[in-house]
């Protein structure tokens, strides 16, 4: 691994010693170095090119139920000692000195290779991709009145070492390309957005050429000009592959995070072994899903990412765990301990969360639906994890009439309850796609993906402005 330069092992060992000098059950040093770059085009012009870098260390000390935490951007041994003392003081330990023994290095095979590292690509090539996207979006028709496009890439290197003797490192590369188009027509202004992202370098643009991303965004905006308000009421809802994963991420995934379960804030508390979903439903969180936006080698506590089956054939099988929750239960972390930066404490987070594919041809799902809503793209949404209630905006949708897609719809919202929606899934397609996003929890945002095959929920409340 290339992470050795981040911090010397002997310095780490002495820092952990300082962190535990007032006693404690556990101490950890987390080193992070991240460089990112981005550029934005708006109104036909590359407006701004920017970059950022950060490097620092987060130190935590656990004494009983209490975690003391301090962080610093000063990587000198003196800076680390002072942060370690602050963390030890905050944890309020009082007894015995613990020695930190020899480290055993954990190595994890990367799920995939990165070909074109962000810094290896000339900035002129990157901004040229923005111009290509601008031209392609505008070529979709005179109704396209405004276009903005941006790319963002990052390289994050981490090193984790703890008083259990673990030391492990990882390198995480991410690239994202976004296009937003504004279309103008008789119904006013409408917008369309598309922003693919992967844990790869600039080769992202081979899988998702700028022109293709621009066309999707522009056509989404144009279709909304023609769209009519969605009908309010309870209807069957067909979610296109990839589009609905975020709904299950929000409405079910969060409730399967062990910290929320422990806080009594999950509808899934105490229900392992129970049938909580339709038997057609298997939900998996897999941090090793290659190239996906939420993939990594090790989590931010040094645990290897892994595939975790959360719901199998409708039966709740397990929650997701970070190190501290797992220690309390005497089990292993599931590799879901993540933090936004070295300045944050880790907590249980999802990675790539998806419903597994089924057996039905997706076309048959639409043709089996006499009347309903077909959702092609959802926006963000919110969920009350304690109740499972959710609301999602739909950014591209069509009416299904007599088993055929008809009018485009706008202004639709899906409203429901996660557990009820899981039980109401009655058709699951044999296709699959994912969607990249940022998941927010307690003020920390981390990259995740969500996925699902085309599927039908037999009944969901659709909030719209039409009759």
């Amino acid at each position, binding site marked *: 691994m290339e992470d050795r330069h981040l911090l010397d092992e002997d310095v780490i060992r002495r820092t952990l010693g300082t962190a535990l000098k007032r006693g404690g059950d556990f101490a950890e040093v987390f080193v992070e170095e991240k460089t990112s770059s981005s550029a934005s085009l708006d109104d036909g012009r590359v407006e701004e090119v920017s970059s*950022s870098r950060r490097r620092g260390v987060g130190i935590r000390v656990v004494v009983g*139920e209490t975690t003391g935490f301090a962080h610093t951007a000063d990587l000198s041994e003196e800076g680390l000692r002072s942060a370690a003392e602050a963390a030890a*003081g905050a944890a309020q330990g009082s007894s015995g000195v613990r020695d930190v023994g020899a480290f055993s290095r954990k190595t994890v095979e990367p799920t995939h290779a990165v070909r074109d590292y962000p810094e290896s690509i000339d900035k002129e090539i*990157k901004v040229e991709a923005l111009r290509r996207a601008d031209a392609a979006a505008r070529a979709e028709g005179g109704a396209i009145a405004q276009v903005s496009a941006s790319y963002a890439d990052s390289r994050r290197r981490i090193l984790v070492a703890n008083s259990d003797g673990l030391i492990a490192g990882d390198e995480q590369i991410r690239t994202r390309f976004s296009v937003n188009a*504004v279309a103008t027509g008789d119904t006013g202004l409408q917008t369309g957005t598309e922003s693919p992202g992967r844990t790869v370098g600039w080769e992202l643009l081979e899988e998702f050429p700028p022109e293709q991303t621009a066309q999707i965004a522009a056509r989404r905006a144009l279709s909304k000009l023609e769209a009519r308000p969605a009908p309010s009421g309870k209807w069957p809802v067909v979610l296109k592959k990839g589009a609905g994963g975020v709904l299950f991420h929000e409405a079910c995934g969060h409730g399967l995070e062990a910290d929320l379960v422990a806080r009594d804030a999950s509808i899934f508390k105490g229900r392992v072994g129970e049938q909580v979903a339709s038997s057609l439903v298997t939900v998996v969180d897999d941090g090793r899903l290659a190239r996906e936006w939420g993939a990594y080698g090790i989590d931010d506590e040094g645990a290897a990412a892994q595939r975790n089956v959360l719901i199998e054939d409708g039966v709740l099988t397990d929650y997701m765990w970070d190190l501290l929750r797992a220690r309390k239960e005497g089990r292993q972390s599931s590799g879901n301990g993540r933090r936004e930066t070295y300045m944050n404490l880790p907590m249980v987070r999802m990675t790539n969360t998806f419903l597994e594919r089924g057996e039905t041809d997706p076309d048959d799902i639409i043709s089996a639906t006499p009347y309903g809503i077909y959702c092609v793209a959802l*926006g963000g949404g919110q969920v009350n994890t304690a109740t499972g209630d959710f609301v999602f905006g739909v950014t591209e949708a069509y009416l299904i009439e007599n088993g055929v897609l008809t009018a485009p719809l706008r*202004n639709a919202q899906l409203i429901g309850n996660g557990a009820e929606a899981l039980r109401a899934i009655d058709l699951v397609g044999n296709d699959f796609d994912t969607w990249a996003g940022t998941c927010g929890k307690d003020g920390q945002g981390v990259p995740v993906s969500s996925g699902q095959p085309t599927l039908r929920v037999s009944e969901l409340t659709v909030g719209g402005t039409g009759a």
Partner: protein
Amino acid sequence: MTSKRDLLVIAREIAGSARGAEQIEARVGRGRDTDVEVLRGSVESLTVAESEGVTIRVVVDGRQGVASAGSLDPEIVAATLEDARDNARFAEPDEFSGLATPAELGDAIVPELDLWRDDLALIPTEEKVAMALELERAVLSANSLVRGVESSSYGDGSNESALVTSTGIEAFHRRTTASLGASALAGPDSDTQTGYGFSVGRTVSDLDFEYAANQAANRAVRLLGATQPATQRIPVILDPLVARTILALIISALGAESVQKGRSMFAGRLGEAIGSPIVNLIEDPTNPDAFGATPYDSEGAPTRRVNLVTAGVLNAYLHNVTTARRGKTVTTGSALGSGVGARAAYLRPGPLSVEELFASVPSALYVQSVSGIHSGTSTVSGDFSVGAEGLMVRDGVFAEPVREATIASTLPRILLDIAQIGSDLTWLPGGGAGMTLLISDMMLSGS
């Protein structure tokens, strides 16, 4: 902690390295934060940390490059400056871009704002921990239907920053903030409701943990037994937090950047009535009560009071130096990051107390929280359709709670439909103020 001179010296050094046609703006800052999370009577985590950072903007012949770093280490600062210079080479020129100049800012004066409390640094950590624990106890005892506390926390921060440009602008300011927040869980497993309560200020003595605790408990308990309401058109009362959220969406369309780029529903409407006659929308970062208060903006221009909407008529857009040049006007001191934005917007309060406002309609939906704001609303098209939970109000008092509902209108329509503005102006964390609002008509969708 650092001294004012220290930060200004670093910023001056960076800005002073401008060569030839180059313009350089340096923003440097340092901060100290404390954060306490408690759970079930014990400290779950205590974070004490210092942080620092620099953001450098370089403009050469109208081309703009930006770079930032989370460190003031001289080597990293030097590398960051080179990054910004390199980035500028790849941007395309804009005749209107470039740093503000003192001449352009005219005689606008940087207001004196007292946003710093010396005592915050002297308060022992134990006292802060005790407040978070006390808050958790207070939430549990506020109402017998509260069965747990999902989170209870105390946080504070002290931040100092300096801005220097090679065009001759220099500014420094510092601020402290302190806050308490708790989330209550009420009801049985089958009908769990959560409610958030908070109290914010500039130091510990500004905080009111009983207020925060009662707010958290009440907001959770009063939703117990919520059901899906019938679909109907109905007057809607917005809680101050929700009102602030919706006002923020409306104000973002009043930024000159979105107007000039054809991305605002209010483009070309200056001088026209865009709100009901009782609407006076004001942005005023010089008000020290506002948590977004600041004496100068991200470009170093002095902030000022801007009357955006007066008696329903659109009066002004928010400008930074670039949009002002393009629009042949002057900056309103509203530069925010690389763009334009509001920090301390509010509606001038109306005459009615909350009780009087409730009693002013026979029935209404009181909206306590909204969800799906980012996907269900658009400041470009004005679309507004969001998830809502709250309670029905009949004859001036709360009736049954509702959930799994949406409310819909359009953002321009909401501004025109403001029928009453409560007198309960409340400054909120994150900037801006809220107050109870009566909207005469919205579409409520349920069963």
